[in-house]
């Protein structure tokens, strides 16, 4: 089967600190993959390499058979953990920006989402609450008809009641053939939607399995996670 993501023997170090050490995995279209691991294990670094934000690594990284470049960026919708929209920007500006640069951005759907989220099209990011900013960033990503969605801690700053709604939104809006890679530490909230799970520990990929394999012993993904990373607590 044609792979959407191919990572082979990926290494990345910051000075003498090795962050990713020989990571290899593939992801085929249509899967929802959980990227799990304790803080500082290298999840965000892996995501940054996949999205082309970090270049000085060794090993092979391919998205749809291309190294991260302008083409792969056109088919990847990325939600970073950080707030990246400038203070002066308003939702209307952000929608224009995404319409101009991403052919797969559905502006009508985005306008509908803005209204559904109760956002004001002319309110500057600077004056929005943290929750409103997160909603805006999320809608910019899910209103793209991308082949790959990479979501770095999408539920991090969201209250428990909103988490389920956000997950529903992601599932409702993605194309069936698209792949979703979700990095999160809120496993119990998300594990029901995972097809596969990748667990990273100290730069090594220690679990790369289908969720059904993990649940064979009647355990949840979170319980497996706690077993695997018991040293971290």
């Amino acid at each position: 089967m044609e792979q959407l993501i191919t990572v082979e023997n990926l290494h990345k170090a910051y000075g003498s600190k090795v962050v990713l050490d020989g990571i290899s995995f593939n992801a085929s279209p249509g899967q929802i993959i959980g990227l799990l691991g304790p803080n500082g294990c290298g999840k965000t670094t892996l995501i940054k390499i996949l999205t082309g934000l970090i270049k000085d690594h060794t090993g092979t990284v391919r998205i749809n058979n291309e190294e991260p470049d302008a083409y792969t960026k056109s088919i990847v919708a990325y939600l970073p953990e950080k707030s990246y929209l400038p203070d002066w920007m308003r939702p209307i500006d952000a929608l224009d920006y995404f319409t101009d640069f991403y052919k797969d951005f559905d502006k009508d759907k985005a306008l509908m989402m803005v209204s559904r989220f109760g956002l004001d099209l002319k309110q500057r990011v600077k004056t929005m609450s943290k929750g409103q900013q997160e909603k805006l960033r999320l809608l910019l990503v899910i209103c793209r008809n991308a082949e790959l969605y990479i979501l770095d801690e999408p539920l991090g700053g969201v209250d428990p009641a909103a988490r389920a709604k956000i997950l529903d939104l992601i599932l409702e809006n993605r194309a069936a053939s698209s792949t979703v890679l979700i990095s999160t530490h809120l496993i119990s909230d998300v594990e029901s939607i995972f097809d596969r799970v990748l667990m990273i520990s100290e730069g090594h990929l220690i679990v790369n399995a289908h969720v059904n394999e993990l649940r064979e012993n009647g355990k949840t993904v979170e319980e497996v996670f706690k077993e695997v990373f018991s040293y971290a607590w």
Partner: protein
Amino acid sequence: MLGKLLKHELKQSARSVTLIYASAAAVIAFIFIGMLTKITWIGVVGSIVLYLTALIGVVMTLVSVIRNFYETLYSNQGYLSFTLPVKCSSLLSSKVIVSVLWIILSFLLAAVCFLVIGMNAKATAEGSMAGIWDILELSGLKEMLPTGATLIKLAVIFVVTVLLLVLTFVSFVYFAVTMANTRLLQKHPKLFGFLIFFMTYGITNAIGTKLTYSLPLSLEITTTDVNLVFVAMDKAEGMLSYGLGGTLFMALVAVGLLFLTGWIMEHKVNIK
């Protein structure tokens, strides 16, 4: 995509400079009211404010060019810029074009401000409004000005030189900011940015100055013609001479630095 990048770059950067232009326009209007109503204090206060506005305008434009480049690429906003489906060379080109445009506009604004201050001074001295020609006469420059084709040649040389100077400044700044955001230096990007800028700009300027005087390639300027001559600047004849070695050297270094900056952005920059 370059057109779209330019559009959004202009939109982003315009916010910091339009306030300066609006202030200058308001002060100029204030001075003209003073000249028309012949109320002297309006012209005096207006001229002082306009002088400060012109200086602050140039300084603020330069600062905003540097800040805008850093913030849009190497702060959190870099997550937006570097994940756009465009090549880094396009990203860089749009920023260079828009920055050069704003700097040139701020220089033009400063020139207009000084012209208005001069007109106001003449009007205050003689009790009537003065034109550009009168100001030149007042300063004694009118007799020295060449005419016709020579004037056009000089104007072209002046415009090209200013453009090259601005492009050179922008390329050195962008190179320094980008280098300071590579993995080895990004712990102290401001410190390394300043150091790299002053070192590279200082060294190349020193070499450029030497080449201006020593390279046998100069312009001989007289009131009737401008000629390219293959002698060093101090050996050229004519009313004025201008050594081209330094300008050409700086232009080459600037272009080289822009290519290098694009390459570093493409291959070496890690977004924090």
